[in-house]
């Protein structure tokens, strides 16, 4: 008897849960309402079967519960009944399959007027490529990837020269225009998924896959990687901004073409030296850092990292948090560097400074810090702590240890890495969960100190 009641209750609870659940498909932002329709059809058909079969089972168990003198009916089979059930089931299955196949036919056939956009996945970041004025994407190949050519562009392909390269986790799409999203991976399998679009597709190294949609609702939506792509899979986040055509074009124009990135002005250390005087007041004439002034060592750090942090300070992505006292001091200082060229020059000068490791000030147990560095930090920052440009991970070895401790604490407390535009900081923000307390932070920094 408890079993019969529990089956009935479970059926009732399941149905009630379905109708009362606050967790359901997110509001749709693409043309794929048909996908939601097929889900609903499937729900009604399967829900009906679920309720009917289970309630029938509960009734059967009640009706034919054990009685001492009862004898089961001897009924090896009932061909007619079995045929009926088979037939009805086939109709039910067809009613779900047929609409699904029609929608799938729409999904595999991209409208002729769709414009193309390329999404590129890598461990554990996104970037994007838009065809330039010619509407064609140039050839690209993972084998061509270098620090200067992170997109792996084929320099000889004329179609690629005007391609617009977006080295950010954020992409934009124009409203109400069908788009064919070409998917490419530099390294391993990834999956481009936007819950509000309903469609998703894996990205496969060595191949170009695709999906298509028409964005129908302006807004900013999360892009998630939904194919396990290594231990940092869960921090592979991007976003897609759907906006009107004019805003889209403005945004598109703000990104450099491939030709422009090639012609980018290389920083001039001699010119940078002039502006470095401001920096040197705190960070030291040789960029060696000054613990008394809470200024970390700069010398030895990669220029791409210095450039980005200076831009972050300038634009308030970093140093704007109320609890980031020292970061706040940097904001006005960075503002002194008014142009991108000035930022590049200073970064170039800093890179020319002598690379001497900062003194050890942090005490911790390096042996305890070693496993977490090897399994987590060292994957992106490299096992030797030298940093890896390809994953936007700066050098750690030989850099100021007390500063590393403070930044890890800031990431942990959300003082750093929580600004919406601090895309790579967000990843650190998540990754520091591998360090549970201050002792763990000291230990891992102590281990980094052994890498100099």
């Amino acid at each position, binding site marked *: 008897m408890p079993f019969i009641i529990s089956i009935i209750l479970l059926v009732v609870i399941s149905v009630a849960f379905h109708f009362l659940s606050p967790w359901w*498909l997110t509001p749709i932002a693409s043309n794929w309402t048909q996908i939601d329709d097929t889900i609903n059809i499937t729900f009604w058909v399967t829900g009906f079967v679920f309720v009917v079969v289970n309630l029938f089972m509960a009734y059967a168990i009640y009706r034919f519960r054990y009685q001492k003198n009862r004898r089961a009916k001897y009924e090896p*089979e009932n061909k007619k009944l079995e045929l009926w059930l088979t037939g009805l089931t086939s109709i039910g299955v067809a009613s779900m399959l047929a609409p699904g196949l029609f929608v799938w036919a729409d999904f595999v056939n991209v409208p002729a007027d769709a414009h193309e956009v390329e999404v590129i996945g890598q461990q554990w970041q996104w970037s994007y490529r838009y065809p330039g004025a010619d509407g064609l994407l140039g050839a690209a190949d993972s084998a061509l990837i270098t620090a200067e050519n992170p997109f792996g562009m084929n320099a000889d392909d004329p179609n690629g020269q005007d391609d617009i390269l977006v080295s950010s986790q954020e992409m934009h799409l124009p409203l109400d225009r069908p788009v064919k999203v070409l998917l490419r991976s530099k*390294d391993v399998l990834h999956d481009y998924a936007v*819950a509000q679009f309903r469609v998703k597709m894996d990205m496969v190294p060595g191949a170009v896959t695709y999906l298509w949609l028409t964005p129908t609702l302006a807004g900013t939506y999360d892009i998630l990687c939904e194919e396990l792509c290594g231990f940092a899979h869960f921090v592979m986040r991007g976003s897609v901004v759907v906006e009107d055509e004019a805003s889209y074009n403005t945004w598109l124009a703000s990104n450099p073409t491939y030709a422009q990135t090639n012609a980018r002005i290389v920083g001039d250390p001699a010119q940078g030296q002039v502006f470095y005087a401001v920096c040197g007041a705190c960070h030291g004439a040789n960029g060696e850092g000054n613990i008394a002034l809470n200024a970390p060592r700069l010398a030895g750090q990669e220029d791409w990292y210095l450039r980005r942090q200076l831009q972050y300070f300038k634009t308030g992505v970093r140093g704007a948090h109320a609890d980031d006292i020292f970061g706040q001091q940097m904001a006005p200082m960075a503002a002194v560097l008014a142009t991108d060229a000035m930022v590049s020059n200073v970064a170039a000068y800093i890179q020319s400074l002598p690379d001497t490791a900062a003194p050890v000030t942090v005490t911790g147990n390096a042996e305890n810090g070693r496993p977490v560095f090897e399994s987590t930090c060292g994957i992106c920052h490299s096992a030797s702590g030298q940093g*890896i440009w390809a994953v936007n991970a700066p050098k750690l070895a030989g850099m100021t240890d007390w500063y590393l401790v403070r930044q890890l604490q800031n990431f942990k407390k959300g003082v750093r890495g929580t600004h919406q535009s601090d895309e790579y900081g967000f990843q650190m923000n998540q990754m520091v969960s591998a360090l549970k307390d201050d002792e763990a932070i000291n230990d891992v920094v102590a281990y980094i100190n052994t890498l100099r």
Partner: protein
Amino acid sequence: MTSYVPIADQSHVMHDPHTFITKYVWSQDHKVIAIQYGGTAIFVGLIALVLSAMMRLQLGYPDTFSFIDPANYIQFVTMHGMIMVIYLLTALFLGGFGNYLIPLQLGARDMVFPYLNMLSYWFYLLSVLILLASFFVTGGPTGAGWTLYPPQAILRGTPGTDGPGIILMLVSLLVFIMAFTMGGLNYVTTVLQARTHGMTLMRMPLSVWGIFVATILALFAFPALFVSALMMLLDKLLGTSFFMPALASLGQVSEHTGGSPILFQHLFWFFGHPEVYIVALPAFGLVSDVLSTHARKNIFGYRMMVWAIVAIGGLSFIVWAHHMYVSGMNPYFGFFFAFTTLIIAIPTAIKVYNWVLTLWHGNIRMTVPMLFAMGFIFTFIHGGLTGIFLGNVTVDLPLSDTYFVVAHFHMVMGVSPVMVLFAAIYHWYPKITGKMFNVTLGKIHFWATFLGTYAIYLPMHYLGFLGVPRRYFALGSTDFIPDSAMALNANITQAAIFVGVMQLLFIYNIISSLRNGAPAGGNPWESVSLEWQTPDTPPRHGNWGDKLPVVYRWAYEYGVPGVKDDFVPQNVPPEEVVMEPGAGKYVDRSEGHYS
């Protein structure tokens, strides 16, 4: 009569083991090997259960436990999945129940190749030890997910690639497959060659049918996994490029070129989908026997049930790419595989109807195995129906790689087969040990497991609709995922920990009942099939004493009108069946259908 009969009937040709070692360790007796398989499988299953608790702790209470970081979280995910699917479910259904039941239900003295059977277990144990060794090596076990997709499975950035973790995983799989092949050839040959007098194929219990067809599937499917594991091993160790295209890993352009990651996926799922049925078909068979026995009624539509098993087995080889709808394979495959996948729903539905119709007009005894068997019907209906969502290519688009998938396959391939395993263990425990288990503990175990698992997985489907991705260490701040989903995750974790802890009741019950259980007698459930008619309980070496049993009818002769008892064992000659006064002579009415 064929010539093997006199030999099989001569008990003196049995090589009885004499020492403790040959009896219990290097044993060639199928019953001892079954228990070895079962014990080992349950042991690794408990490890996988602990791993799942770790994952749930992280998901329910992120940033709380110092022993879970992003790298070992994904290692837990990987090892949990692989252990549960291969080393627990496959091993327990085929190595455990296959070994125990095939000879006993068919009236054979043992498997036809006892020595090979023994080797099969020791290779299995070796594969388990290699697998578990990966927890103790530098870098720990692989964290590639149980699907082991390349390129990531062998590239830096995935745990277990700096050390030997992934290599140990692949080698363990290779050894497991060798172990299985030795056992599997044995099961098939025994079913085809060693059935006793009168045991026609269409008189075999559905347990044997399920195990037999599943074994054939496995013999065809595992080679695909074998070659893919071997090729990946070569890619990793020798730098070949079977599955590795040109790529730039963490900024380094690799030496690989020309390989195809999607080829691996096809090979993997060519094994992986039949694998679902390698687990499910034995479960279908075992549960049919449990339901029929405790409902005191013949299984409804026996022939249809047999053909459904065969049809599902056949179809299971042409549906594999439904695991790959969003893999980037040619999207036109979607039409074919959605079609075949939804076709398979039809024979599967027939099985469900027939189980329910077996209860109809029965006289249902609410025993512990029966509770688990009926609980299985509920969980399997649920898990089967959600499979229709994912099998339909369009519906799969939003749901693929979300918690809907996790919830679906745990209902259909986790909870459901495990309900059958418990039903089967409680059902055959009296025969295996000669003792009855503690019924009260068994019932508590049932309620905790049945209700607890539903509390875990029902809400999880809705996280999937919402779009919560699977295999995420933490969700971070994601706009479309509300805080209530995080709270729900904590509730799911509480249910999961509860269910996990309650499994200790089961372990305690089966161990303590060995000593304290009441003597069960030879046929406590008043069952028809042959294993309950052995001269000794537990059956001794050789199973049948001096003379092999002779089978006169099918395995479901319950509730025959006019017969005094409500069951007629398979080996009772028609003239010895005791009738009620005035009922006339016993007539085998099943024969009209099942000769």
